[in-house]
């Protein structure tokens, strides 16, 4: 790096101002170039493609309107978008309901010296490929799978949920639960237990203290965890594709079909992609605004 002296000697005639900028640029350059070539440019290309109706591989790019975006409003596609959103919301609710007790126990009740080990154990699934995890669920959930063998062994009727909505929600909740637990844990761990004592001192039963102190105090964590899980669920492809079957078409699967599947409509796929990018960006903006520990108002 070029040494840049921020305090220029008085004798120097030309101000060293331009040279001061070399440092930051040198540091940001490589990653900036990376982002420009592999994120910004492709997004711009996708945006251009999204303005061409019915484009297929090999066609000339000739931007001519927003027809692709209007196509989204057809009932069949609105249904797909609705399903995508409901999967994201459903996964978030499941993760919150399952994750909060776990995070609460980890942060406030588990033995201190086991805490780190337990946290690692909970994030262990994240260390394997999401594809492998989904295949594991297939072996568990298929009609002759592990689940039905177990149910049969204890005399219960088998379940046929593979290729249905419950399997998708199960797979997505399983995949994203660790994120929820980690974020809720870091929020609950900061909870000042003396506040719970103060609540008890003022007459609140443990349950009242939970709703009036613990939950409001960890609201930031709940918001951050929920947004993160919702954003990730929105763009999930593997779980709906492998566990969902034909009936659970989601936005990401639809996009895949426009580019690599049978349909081959790059223009419509690009328009859908732009909408997804917009939705996820909005979620991330919300996450930055409300999920970073600053008061919301």
């Amino acid at each position, binding site marked *: 790096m070029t040494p840049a002296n921020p305090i220029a000697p008085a004798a120097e005639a030309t101000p060293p101002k331009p040279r001061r900028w070399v440092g930051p640029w040198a540091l940001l350059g490589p990653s900036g170039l990376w982002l420009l070539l592999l994120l910004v440019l492709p997004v711009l290309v996708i945006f251009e493609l999204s303005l061409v109706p019915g484009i297929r591989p090999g066609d000339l790019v000739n931007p001519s309107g927003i027809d692709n975006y209007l196509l989204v409003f057809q009932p069949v596609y609105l249904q797909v978008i609705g399903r995508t959103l409901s999967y994201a919301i459903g996964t978030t609710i499941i993760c919150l309901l399952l994750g909060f007790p776990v995070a609460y126990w980890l942060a406030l009740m588990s033995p201190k010296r086991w805490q780190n080990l337990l946290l690692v154990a909970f994030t262990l699934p994240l260390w394997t490929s999401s594809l492998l995890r989904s295949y594991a669920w297939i072996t568990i959930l298929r009609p002759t799978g592990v689940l039905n063998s177990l149910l049969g062994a204890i005399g219960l009727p088998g379940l046929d949920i593979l290729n249905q909505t419950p399997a998708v929600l199960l797979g997505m909740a399983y995949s994203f639960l660790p994120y929820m637990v980690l974020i809720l844990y870091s929020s609950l761990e900061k909870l000042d237990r003396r506040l719970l004592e*103060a*609540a008890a001192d*003022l007459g*609140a039963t443990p349950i009242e203290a939970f709703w009036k102190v613990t939950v409001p105090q960890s609201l930031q964590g709940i918001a951050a965890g929920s947004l993160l899980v919702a954003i990730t669920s929105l763009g999930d492809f593997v779980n709906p594709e492998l566990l969902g079957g034909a009936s659970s078409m989601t936005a990401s699967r639809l996009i895949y079909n426009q580019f690599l599947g049978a349909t081959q409509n790059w223009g419509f796929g690009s328009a859908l992609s732009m909408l997804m990018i917009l939705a996820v960006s909005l979620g991330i903006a919300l996450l930055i605004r409300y999920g970073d520990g600053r008061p919301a108002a």
Partner: protein
Amino acid sequence: MSQTAVRASQAIETDTQLDVELRKVFKVYNGETAVRGVDLHIGRGEFFSILGPSGCGKTTTLRLVAGFEQPSAGEVLVRGQSMLNVPPYQRPVNTVFQSYALFGHMSIWDNVAFGLRIKRCGKAETEERVNEALALVKMEKFARRYPNQLSGGQQQRVALARALVNRPAVLLLDEPLGALDLKLRKEMQMELSTLHRELGLTFVMVTHDQEEALSLSDRISVMNEGRVEQIGSPSEIYESPRTPFVADFIGDTNLFRGRVSEFDRTGSAIVTDNGLKLVATPSGDWAGSVGEAAAVSVRPEKVQVSLYPPDLSVNCFEGRLQNVMYLGTHVHYVVELRSGDRLTVMQVNVGGELPALNTPIYAYWSTADALAMSAA
């Protein structure tokens, strides 16, 4: 001082009306005994302090009254009712926490209203009582603010209001002024004292600050290593310490340890320690016996120093001046006696030249100023 003494004796007289009672209370944590057989009888309307160094069990004792801890043995009573298995949220006491523990997600008004809302107080009554409590601590103007917008002293007032609004039988204060700077602490001490007088409520305060305990309390319980060393009015604690620990912890003192060798005609105990023969007055109603381990406490301000031998037969020792510190109003001397004992002396500065280091010097005091107590 005389006023507090009068109030202290009143509190002892109204012994039938006890607000807080601890009977032979023990608390063991993971094999360590934090509280060892504490007996306390706190009268209605008393300002009672539990004073001691950190780790002496004073905060644990307060938490046993609040209900955050359950005694391992013994009994805690509030207004004559056993608190065995009574959870904190059902006890008629409220606590002002050292850290204030205000709810950051609630406005000041909501913080103070918390207890009343839990108890399902009517809307009108809640409003009236919250406003009254905020007015009591002069925080009405801050009702709509949030805790993180207030200074430490202001948060302290809110914590007080939040506890007082519930009209508890007993107000527990855990090092309430510990986090404030000196000037604010003095101010809040005055306000605590005024509040106590106006409300006539029983205050039980934990503190490690002896000055705070002495200036505010009707009675003080001095604790050390989980035990109560002495209970008494501030003047009793300061002027008639029962144990060497109390003598040493409350104010500065010079402690000599030894054994009772004999009693003279005036009843003064004579104790010797590495060759020193001290004539002392029994502290309080201590009646030692010959051969008993004893300690003698002499306050630095009661010791006189002189370059010439004074005309005294007892409690006069020769030594060397080891250190002199000029403090303006006072002069602080350290004298090493021939016996090897080191003596701290605090004298009012009367002007004149200070003696040089290593000057042979005589230190002496009156028998009345030397207090003898059991060192068992």
